[in-house]
């Protein structure tokens, strides 16, 4: 069966991107443009699916009710930029190029490039299992990235932007400082290169994982039950991480999709029930400012932390 989202991306490629590239004489980028079309269509589907599922959920069992929801709109912008816009293109193209060159160089020097399927040969031919193996490793790596971003003052200065939101919704997942995103991307890239992650091979499964991450920020009184919460991260679990008391250097529940790393490394806290969110130390720009105001404020905090005056 043909995948409807792939066909949608193919339609965009055939009827919008190709004629444009042909017109301006950039046909050499046609494979890249198809990669972007795929990433963007799946990004859009992610946003649409999250919107369709989380909106009723937030209306049904909200943790908080706000008269003025203006602070939420900037998070919508963050989400669109991150999932549909330039970011998929940059990350896909950049990662792909670096990966091809690194692995090709390794081959030239008589090394076999790292690849999970080659380390664990039974995985070859079982793409779904392979995907979950890759996803678990990346989730573990992300746990440590996130945990360290709370430890170092300069890094926390950037990550505080994510925590400054007092009206946390399912849109808040992508609310990050661009430098924090950049560090996250380099971090991801190093791990992904070490295990040979295939870019863009499993867009549907990535969609599911990203949905779980968005859902975990939802303004919804939702827990997956005693066992469920120990299998997949719930809104209740991640909200504890965003709680006002947990902001800063000693927090809990750093995981993205799987709570196991918090359980293994002793940072899991299943006891907190839907605290108010935010970072009491964040300035007004970081809390309620527009996109650029937030970025600028984060950058200034970052600079101050670097010179040791924060």
């Amino acid at each position, binding site marked *: 069966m043909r995948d409807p989202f792939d066909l949608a991306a193919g339609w965009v490629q055939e009827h919008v991107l190709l004629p444009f590239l042909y017109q301006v004489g950039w046909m050499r980028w046609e494979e890249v443009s198809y990669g972007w079309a795929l990433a963007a269509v799946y990004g859009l589907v992610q946003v649409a699916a999250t919107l369709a599922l989380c909106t009723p959920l937030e209306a049904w069992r909200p943790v908080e009710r706000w008269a003025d929801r203006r602070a939420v709109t900037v998070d919508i912008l963050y989400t669109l930029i991150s999932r549909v816009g330039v970011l998929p293109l940059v990350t896909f193209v950049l990662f*792909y190029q670096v990966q091809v060159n690194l692995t090709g160089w390794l*081959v030239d020097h008589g090394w076999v490039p790292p690849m999970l399927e080659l380390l664990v040969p039974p995985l070859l031919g079982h793409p779904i299992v392979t995907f979950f193996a890759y996803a678990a490793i990346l989730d573990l790596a992300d746990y440590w990235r996130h945990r360290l971003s709370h430890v170092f003052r300069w890094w926390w200065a950037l990550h505080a932007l994510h925590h400054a939101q007092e009206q946390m919704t399912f849109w808040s997942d992508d609310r990050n400082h661009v430098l924090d995103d950049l560090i996250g991307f380099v971090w991801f890239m190093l791990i992904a290169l070490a295990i040979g992650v295939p870019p863009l091979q499993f867009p549907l499964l990535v969609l599911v994982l990203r949905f779980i991450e968005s859902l975990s920020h939802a303004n919804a009184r939702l827990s997956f039950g005693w066992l469920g919460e120990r299998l997949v991260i719930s809104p209740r679990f991640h909200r504890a991480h965003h709680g006002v008391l947990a902001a800063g250097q000693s927090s809990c529940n750093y995981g993205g999709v799987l709570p196991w790393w918090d359980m293994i490394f002793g940072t899991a806290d299943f006891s907190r029930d839907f605290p108010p969110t935010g970072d009491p130390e964040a300035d007004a720009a970081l809390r309620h400012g527009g996109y650029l105001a937030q970025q600028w404020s984060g950058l200034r905090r970052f600079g101050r932390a670097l010179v040791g005056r924060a």
Partner: protein
Amino acid sequence: MPVRRLLPLLFALLGAALAAPRPAAAEGLAFVMNSGAASISVIDMSTEKPLRRIPVLREPHHWALSPDGRSLIIGDSSGNSLFFLNPMTGAVQRRIVVADPYQLGFSPNGRFLTVNGLARNQIDVYAAASMKLLHRFPIRSMPSHLAYSPDSRRLFVTLQGTNRLVAIDLQAMRVLWDRPVGNTPAGVLWQNGKLLVCDMGTDYVAEVDPEDGKVIGHVVTEKGAHNLFRSPDGKTIWVNNRVSGTTTVLDAATLRPLRTYHIPGGPDDLFFAPDGKVWITRRFAESVAVLNPATGKFDLIDVGRSPHGIFLSPHAPSPDRLAAAR
């Protein structure tokens, strides 16, 4: 145990049943390289039904048949591997590690195997028999398709990123010339002492003099001329036009267009079946079109994401016969 003694008898009976003559089934397997799904679709040519998918590592694009016909070699570019398949069964024979094998082809005399690394800007020439790397040509940029002179002395590679065509002397292992040939050159074919080069950024095929790389003429097809193939009878040349979604058939002798077929979905590679039908991969539509040239109608077969290269093995036994042989 009596059961244990019965087993050989059972197997013998089973063997006899399987070896019994069966009605002759139509034959043939099609192999489609799903570049975006890390797999190769195997299709029963007689029923046009997908049979299974062979997993590869990352990104299978193009293929070459070994000179002895025993191996279908598929380049998995970002998987840095060549997969050797039995073209009669699809069984994987072996995998060898090679940097970025995007496009590959044996010289007509079977001595050389050229492997283009599109993402790494390199052209590697191997000794076909030993798979020893004879020479690497680092080149700018994006080497994509290749052709040889019929005497196997010269190799021609299109450079998609710099709009050029490069000629390599395979005796001296040196670059003869490197000249501009239009916009985003892709497919290249030796035809009647000339080179035909598809210019994907234009609506034409350039005619190039193989001696010096000068463009001596243009054959207008349609937008996004991407790749071209000579029919088995040598009478026609088929050009896939990526942007307009068409296939133009040229008279091989005069290069005049004879007919245009509408094949939307980014037509890429094609292969001629013995029954006269033409199998075409639709890069952006996750399918293969099986075109009946007489009527212009085509059937569609579902394959994986971004199908690129296609190879037909018309004499491969049908799946029933294969199962029987097992």
